[in-house]
């Protein structure tokens, strides 16, 4: 199998703090790759770099054969992303959000309506397409964001904690959509989540990151075997420790040392 995503010694430094420290990994085309780690481990910073939102301090990223730093637009056309925080325009209707996306991703005009319809039907929002996004619930917004990310037929879909804050019904529905996309269209899925059972159920391959370093990679079975645990969650806790992390990363004593870094790291 060829790699759809390939990362080599990727590093991001904010002043003297290293959020991501020389990580390397590959994601096979057609797989579901779970990228796990405690809060502030470097997950979101990594996703931001993979999706051209942040410039890496160092390292190479290839998506769909395109160099993310040098062939930005080709790389951008190859992936879809559902960000951790909402990124919809509340003042537009769902359909208008979809059209906006289709146009800026240069979906041919003839195919636009059809593709938008299909994507909205997949997530069950076609009947609500004319409603303003501000009238949507959290789960509906998430589903709309997933639908939106599908309109330009990405080769790889990044999902940054797509089910956070959602009820079990919605979470189940979202994962089943994602699984279908992966199986029926061969779309590669790159996801982060804090729900270990979700990763366990869906991922072919798992990487665990902590303190900006990848500390474990492998299939679910390999990781459980290596760590001699019954579940992924136990393996995860053994690997990353049981301390509670600050929302912005790092154990709290280190945060204090870092002082003014707090504000900068949020973006």
């Amino acid at each position, binding site marked *: 199998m060829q790699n759809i995503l390939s990362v080599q010694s990727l590093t991001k430094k904010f002043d003297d703090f290293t959020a991501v420290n020389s990580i390397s990994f590959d994601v096979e085309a057609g797989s579901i790759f779970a990228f796990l780690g405690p809060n502030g481990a470097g997950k979101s910073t990594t996703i*931001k770099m993979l*999706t*051209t*939102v*942040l*410039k890496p301090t160092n390292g190479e990223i290839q998506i769909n054969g395109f160099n993310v730093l040098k062939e*930005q*637009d*080709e790389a*951008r*056309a190859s992936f879809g*992303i559902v*960000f951790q*925080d*909402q*990124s*919809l*325009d*509340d*003042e*537009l209707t769902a359909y*208008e959000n979809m*059209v*906006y*996306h289709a*146009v*800026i*991703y*240069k979906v041919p005009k003839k195919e636009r309506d059809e593709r938008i319809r299909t994507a909205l039907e997949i997530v069950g929002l076609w009947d609500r397409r004319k409603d303003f996004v501000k009238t949507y619930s959290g789960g509906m917004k998430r589903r709309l964001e997933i639908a939106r990310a599908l309109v330009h037929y990405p080769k790889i879909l990044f999902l940054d904690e797509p089910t956070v804050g959602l009820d079990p019904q919605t979470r189940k529905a979202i994962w089943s959509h994602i699984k279908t996309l992966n199986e029926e269209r061969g779309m590669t899925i790159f996801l982060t989540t804090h729900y270990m059972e979700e990763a366990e159920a869906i991922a072919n391959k798992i990487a665990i990151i902590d303190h900006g370093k990848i500390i474990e990679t492998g299939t679910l079975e390999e990781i459980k075997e290596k760590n001699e645990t019954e579940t992924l969650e136990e393996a995860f806790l053994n690997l990353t420790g049981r301390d509670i992390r600050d929302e912005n990363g790092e154990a709290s004593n280190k945060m204090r040392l870092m002082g003014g870094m707090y504000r900068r790291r949020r*973006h």
Partner: protein
Amino acid sequence: MIEVIYILWLRQLKRYWRSKARLVGSLGQPLLFMVAFGFGFGPMYARASGGANYMDFLAPGIVSMSILFTAVFSGLEVIWDRQFGFLKETLVAPITRTEIMIGKTLGGATIAMIQGLVVFGLTYLLGFRAESLESLGLGLLFMFLIALFFTGMGLTIASKMKDMHGFQMIMNFLIMPIFFLSGALFPLENLPPAIYFISRIDPLTYGVDGLRGALTGVSAFGVYNDLAVILALSAFICTVGAVLFSKIEA
């Protein structure tokens, strides 16, 4: 490329059109200024100038003011987009930053232009009249250039701001002085040298003077000089904005 710019433009217009409260609310200030200053200082101005009509002087200034405020706000809206996450959606798309800059500038400028036209209509209700149809055409060009320049300025500032905390500072130390020292409310003759100097480096000075010159035939620097200055400034700020925008990170 045209379609990308169009959809960015369309989004801004839809948002503007849908917030009727903002549309109506933003007419209150120019109306108040025109009534309070126009009728308040009118008699004084007439006496001092030997019979000239203050409303003729003031109306282009108030139209410029409403364009200034609307344009800067529209530019700064990018900060809201950033805070509500929508900016990321646009930034990860396979489009150039220049396209984003152009789309947003034209969107904001169009909104400011509409706002200016509505206020211009209000001045007609209060008795203001343009000299002729040609002068009206030239006036519209000035209104659009003012809108373009200040939307570009808003966007340029917004590309460097992470949140709305600096908003008050920008209002009080940049936008308000730009308005008050532009000659929108009073003639710039016989001012203390320091104030005169500031008014000469104030971009709106040339917009107001040009608009006034176009509409009423009275200008301090000459309409075509004003036109050249505001054109050059608009080109400059849009270039700066495009450069800063190309480095923007969500």
